[in-house]
């Protein structure tokens, strides 16, 4: 193997294989973790990363192979045992307890000696941990209704509150913005110095290169390479992951020409949630929404889609004033909303890819006597499977059995299929790999070219900057400004999002609408 830190490895995975029905998720892979290292694991969607992790924490049992902890072979039968062995994980899909308070969510799994709950301590410590992450949450509120990012923060707090030797993070940053990511990395760094071994999975390569000591790449369930960070380049890593070269990302073709206004929002407010939001989306334009976790961007999206209608304000769509009170009504207007939370809100997990993709338009697939035309449905699903490179044996597979990224693609397909006039994307590339991300960006561009208006809510700042014609920045439910592409720099947007002074832009020409 590779040159390694002088210490003995904590955890070794030898020749692990795992098969689900038709899918060989892992095929004879090996991985070694040393104390005090951050080990990044890269791979395309469905490469088997999450599966490996679930084997490490006892959720899945390997078909073959061996796990060695401190030189001793171990069987990890369940999560409880993994925790006792000092292994904890932040899973790709946050799994919170909606009825428990945030504080309890963090401490419920802790094994303690007394059978009693010390409420005062739990609240204090939860606040302290979230404080270190710089996440502001009322830890006594039930976790129900937290946005995905907030859930992710809770998951992170839960994992680091455990005194562990091996900490696994499966895409912890997927819905965090740059600010929270910075805080998280500070914590990771502290843990690394304490000698914790950290396995870090992300599709954001810049993050990987910022934090990892070593990088392992999987492809199609097989081990491809393990290298020191100094020996890897982003291009090299991508080549390992994909098996070929990939061109540029964020290839924004500037809006051909700004069409007429498609959606015009003035003074949109919802009591206790957001207030006084005003912006325009033109045909063929991509309007980015930036902000920190909890900036209420999602809530604006939900209001426009009629899930949680706003209390006051004007919405003009295609020149006609309208109130949107239900998703169904929004869909009739030609609005589509791709939720950030695919598992809870976006997909019917036990059903097939086909059933999920055709769901919003199902009535269109009804033929004679209202009977569904299964063939037509399947054709649609096949088309998107090809176009978005959804990795699945066939389109009848249950969506719940797909890898996270592939689920995200199915959800995108579901809404693309409705051929909307206005597409609201909430964290559209959450958890999808570089290749697919490029593909999604390509699709967004193409849709814009066709004259579709797009609102893109994203915590991935480079993505927002790269894709948007203009960027609206929100903070705590208020609109901090709208920046033209030319003026939107990372520093200025971050400053607006955090609420600091906005540095001068190279061409100090504020956009007409924002900055109220």
């Amino acid at each position, binding site marked *: 193997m590779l040159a390694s830190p002088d210490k003995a490895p904590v955890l070794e995975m*030898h*020749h692990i294989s795992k098969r689900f*029905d038709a899918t060989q998720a892992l095929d004879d892979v090996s991985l070694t973790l040393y104390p005090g290292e951050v080990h990044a694991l890269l791979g395309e969607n469905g490469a088997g990363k999450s599966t490996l992790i679930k084997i490490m924490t006892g959720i899945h*049992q390997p*078909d*073959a*192979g*061996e796990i060695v902890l401190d030189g001793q072979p171990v069987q990890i039968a369940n999560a409880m045992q993994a925790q006792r062995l000092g292994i904890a994980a932040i899973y790709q899909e946050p799994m919170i307890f909606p009825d428990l308070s945030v504080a309890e969510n963090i401490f419920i799994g802790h094994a303690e000696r007394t059978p009693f709950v010390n409420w005062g301590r739990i609240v204090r410590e939860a606040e302290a941990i979230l404080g270190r992450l710089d996440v502001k949450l009322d830890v006594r509120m039930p976790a129900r209704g937290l946005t995905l990012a907030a859930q992710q923060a809770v998951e992170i707090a839960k994992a680091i509150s455990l005194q562990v030797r091996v900490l696994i993070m499966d895409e912890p940053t997927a819905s965090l913005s740059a600010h929270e990511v910075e805080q998280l990395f500070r914590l990771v760094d502290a843990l690394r110095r304490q000698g914790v071994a950290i396995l870090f999975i992300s599709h954001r390569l810049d993050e990987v290169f910022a934090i990892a000591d070593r990088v392992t790449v999987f492809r199609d369930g097989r081990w491809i390479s393990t290298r020191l960070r100094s020996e890897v380049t982003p291009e090299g890593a991508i080549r390992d992951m994909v098996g070929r070269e990939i061109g540029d990302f964020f290839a924004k073709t500037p809006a051909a020409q700004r069409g007429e206004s498609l959606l015009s929002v003035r003074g949109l407010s919802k009591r206790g949630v957001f207030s006084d939001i005003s912006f325009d989306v033109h045909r063929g334009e991509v309007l980015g929404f930036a902000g920190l976790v909890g900036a209420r961007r999602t809530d604006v999206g939900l209001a426009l*889609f009629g*899930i949680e209608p706003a209390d006051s304000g004007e919405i003009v769509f295609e020149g006609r004033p309208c109130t949107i009170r*239900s*998703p*169904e009504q*929004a*869909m009739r207007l030609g609005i589509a*909303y791709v*939720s950030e939370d695919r598992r*809870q*809100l*976006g*997909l*019917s*997990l*036990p*059903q*097939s890819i086909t*059933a999920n993709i055709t*769901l*919003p338009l*199902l*009535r269109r*697939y*009804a033929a004679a006597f*209202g*009977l*569904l035309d*299964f063939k037509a449905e399947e054709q649609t699903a096949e088309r998107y499977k090809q176009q978005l490179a959804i990795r699945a044996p066939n389109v*009848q597979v*249950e969506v719940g059995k797909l890898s996270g990224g592939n689920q995200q693609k199915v959800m995108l397909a*579901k809404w693309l299929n409705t051929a909307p006039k206005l597409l609201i994307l909430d964290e559209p590339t959450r958890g999808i790999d570089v290749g697919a991300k490029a593909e999604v960006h390509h699709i967004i561009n193409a849709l814009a070219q066709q004259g579709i208006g797009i609102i893109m809510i994203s915590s991935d700042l480079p993505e927002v900057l790269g894709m948007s014609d203009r960027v609206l920045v929100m903070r705590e439910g208020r609109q901090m400004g709208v920046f033209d592409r030319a003026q939107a720099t990372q520093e200025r947007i971050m400053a607006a999002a955090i609420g600091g002074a906005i540095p001068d832009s190279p061409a100090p020409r504020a956009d007409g609408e924002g900055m109220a």
Partner: protein
Amino acid sequence: MFHLPSALRRWETLLLAILAVVVLFNVTRSPFYLRIDNLVNVFELSIEKIIVALVMTFIIINGEIDLSVASVMGLAACVVARLHADGVAMPLAVLVALTVGLLCGAFNGFWIAYVGLPSLAVTLAGLIGYRGAARILLEDKSIGNFPEWFNALGQRPLVGPFPLALIVFFVMLIAAAIILQRTAFGRYVYVIGNNKEVARYAGIRVKQVKMRLFMASGLIAALAGVLLAARLGAVRGNTAEGFELDIITMVLLGGVSIFGGSGTLTGVALSILIILNLRNGMSLANITGNTQTGVIGALLILSVLVPNLVGRLRALRSRMRPATTGPTPQPAQEVEIS
């Protein structure tokens, strides 16, 4: 094709096997079992329950429950009887009874779909309340003496040896299977049962679907109640009391998850066949009363437990195998030693 999750398909195979055993047992144990009148009886004695079980399947797949069905059956029967006793023409009485059923369903549906109350609470109140309404109508009386043609509907064969209710059941079974598996509405029922929010985010009118289901449930329960009145030829305040548990049992044994989102009508149809034939077989073997319900209870548990245990055993064994023959070094050494 709309594919079933593989676990479910396995479930139906199991049910089929159980059914085969039950039938085989009956055939060998009783010379009367295969007689055509007995086979008709197998269905006829529970026909109203199994009609309602079809709608209940939809409701449970949708993630809800309707405990009030038996009370609605009773109420509809009482409405028919009361009106008949008061001199109203029978067809009109039946129409009114069906309307009452529809209204009961709409009432349940309103609180569940639009106010958002848990269906268990609402229909539990309905279970008590609609039964109460039936009691108000008949008090301590028993009303019968229906016109001959009406009684004949329930008691005399209509086509071949089959009475009307049995024909209604088969027509409804086919219709229900088509609606559930082949129409958009059926797909919505599943999606909402899986995750109501996902359905709402996809623009499905969740409230409307739920409302329709409960209205259908009320209507069909009322129809079943009327058929029951025709079969029994007399109605009392407690007609159909306690049927809800039998109906729900049939649906659950059919593999429908109580949490919603999964299950098929094939499964429910098989489970109906199992329960009815088992009942009949036991009756023919002079096993009645609590023992009968006890055996069905045990079957209910075993039919889930045994496949679970077998599955776990198999999983355990397949995990052992690679450990002894896999590429890990220890077993190789063992081979050398031996």
